[in-house]
């Protein structure tokens, strides 16, 4: 590199791109993408289950797989953004349940239109995210600890409040309430195209991926997210509002939890208050498989979506292959390890060869 530095400047620079860029092949720039490991993994998983499970390739199976992927993917995307910003959120799994509970119980207790509950739930979810974020930037404690505390508190509150208000571990049915049908259309409907069922969560998922990718790559906020995770001190030194960025990222996971929570509620009409525990790790796994660095500053929303797809394919593929579902966790673990190793290897190669 130092050789090229010593070259004298040419005053008459042609406006077209540097001709030496040709040396960097398309393959090489593909190798530099954070999602590569996940894509390779997804293809491998797809081929694997196509071979071992006969019904895996049917269109109906495909829509089941996509649905399973979307329920992870909706959260994996904001979690990925947060991880790129250098932080964790362990409270996401139960925050989804909290969102559903708040929505359901508020509407029921106030006998209001369910959309009022949906609105209150959105505010609550964003407030939980804001709480995580503000505690993080004010105390400087590791996000692992802070969100672990939030996770525990929310778990307790989900159970405690539900029992206190409805006397059971699940909420009362709100299926006959005003606005239920329209809310179901938005959060839990399905559309049949040909003979394929497309659940609306898939659209939410794809929409979130698109928005998150736009934010990451094309906005100032995206630049700040990468910088906040990559080197917060440097970012602060050049005037990046690191604290604000991180709070906004936590509110983003709050938004994801709201969408998924409403889906949970309107798929049925009651919510089990103990649900969601453990899902936070699935979201993080999807983000990591998708190329997000645990240390922050690197990753992509598309990668997280592919990570969620791997999750969906493995989850349903095992069923289609008629194996014991207990094997799922093993596969997920192996996938996580392999994808992370592949990501690390690819990144090292991509950076060394430049």
């Amino acid at each position, binding site marked *: *590199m*130092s050789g*090229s*530095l*010593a*070259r*004298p*400047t040419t005053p008459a*620079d042609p406006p077209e791109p*540097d001709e*030496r*860029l040709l*040396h*960097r092949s398309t393959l090489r720039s593909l190798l530099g993408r954070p999602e590569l490991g996940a894509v390779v993994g997804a293809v491998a998983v797809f081929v694997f289950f196509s071979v071992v499970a006969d019904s895996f390739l049917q269109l109906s199976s495909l829509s089941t797989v996509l649905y399973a992927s979307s329920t992870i993917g909706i959260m994996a995307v904001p979690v990925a953004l947060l991880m790129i910003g250098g932080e964790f959120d362990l409270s996401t799994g139960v925050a989804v349940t909290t969102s559903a509970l708040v929505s359901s119980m508020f509407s029921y207790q106030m006998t209001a239109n369910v959309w009022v509950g949906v609105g209150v739930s959105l505010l609550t979810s964003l407030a939980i995210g804001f709480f995580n974020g503000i505690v993080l930037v004010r105390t400087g404690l590791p996000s692992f600890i802070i969100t672990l505390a939030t996770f525990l508190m929310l778990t307790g509150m989900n159970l405690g409040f539900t029992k206190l208000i409805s006397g059971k571990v699940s909420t009362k049915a709100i299926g006959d309430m005003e606005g239920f049908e329209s809310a179901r259309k938005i959060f839990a409907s399905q559309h049949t195209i040909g003979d394929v069922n497309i659940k609306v969560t898939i659209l939410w998922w794809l929409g979130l991926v698109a928005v998150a990718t*736009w934010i990451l790559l*094309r*906005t*100032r906020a*995206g*630049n700040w997210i*990468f*910088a906040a995770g*990559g*080197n917060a*001190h*440097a*970012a602060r*030194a*050049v*005037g*990046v509002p690191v604290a604000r960025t991180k709070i906004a990222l936590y509110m983003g996971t709050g938004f994801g939890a709201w969408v998924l929570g409403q889906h949970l509620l309107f798929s049925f009409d009651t919510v089990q208050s103990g649900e969601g525990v453990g899902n936070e790790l699935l979201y993080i796994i999807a983000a990591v498989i998708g190329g997000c*660095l645990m240390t922050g*500053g*690197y990753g992509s929303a598309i990668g997280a979506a592919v990570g969620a797809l791997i999750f969906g394919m493995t989850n349903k593929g095992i069923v289609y292959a008629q194996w014991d579902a207990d094997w799922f966790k093993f596969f997920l673990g192996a996938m996580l390890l392999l994808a992370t190793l592949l990501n690390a290897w690819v990144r090292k190669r991509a*950076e060394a060869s*430049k």
Partner: protein
Amino acid sequence: MSEREQQPQGPGEGAPATPAPQPPTTGASATTGAGTEGVGAADAPLVELVDVSKYYGNIKALEGVSLEVRAGEISCVLGDNGAGKSTLIKIISGLHQHDAGTFRIDGEQARIGSPREALDRGIATVYQDLAVVPLMPVWRNFFLGSEPTKGRGLLRRLDTATMRETTRTELRRMGIDLRDVDQPIGTLSGGERQCVAIARAVYFGAKVLVLDEPTAALGVKQSGVVLKYVAAARDAGLGVVLITHNPHHAYLVGDRFVLLKRGAMAGSHAKSEITLDELTRQMAGGSELEELSHELARASTPTLRPGRPTAG
């Protein structure tokens, strides 16, 4: 020059059409703010410290240090570890405030409260541990915190074409010819990263550039490259404060030299008043150096001439 003062906020909104204005040619008249009722305004240095002291509790970190920085000149601050160089930087860059003495910017008494304020007044500091985000591409690093955008509302987006092109041309203007501004800045060598940081400061309208040990962690060749860019910044009309413990590097580019020793000023010279040998001697503390050279002479290296540039 006075327009450039407004620039540190970056050409945020509509500026893509006008990147950094061409730096004015070296000339004292251009550098004095028109509004300052001048104490010798025609010839005031960009930054001037007179008998500045700084105490941390009962510890004298800096005492009676004077320094002047003029447009198109490089003022070197030399000193061993613990001599007070970092304290001096912190005062100039606004991290700390001085406790005694006078600090003038453009001939006007000043006290800088924060690094942001220093930036707004045209003083940019490039620290040893560089303010870059290693995994981000060069062009994103270059504009970090001051990204130009186009479009409105929800469609407001980074002007990536301008960002890439400006990064490329600004680096080229400094004599850095990067193959690919999309590579992560962490893949550049230490010298190149220094140069990007310098080019960045110049582009965002710095009038005074404070460089903290820019060659400390670099090899001989890389040091030379960085010094070349320091000289380029000087030629672009900036005042440069070069902090170093290497008299050879300082003498190559410096116009004036301030020697610090244990927090106090041990000497202040213009280049015409001092030779490299003398500078090195003072820097190493006279007798200490003689002792060292005796020791070295005994260690069977008789052909080594004192004062020859060695690895930095």
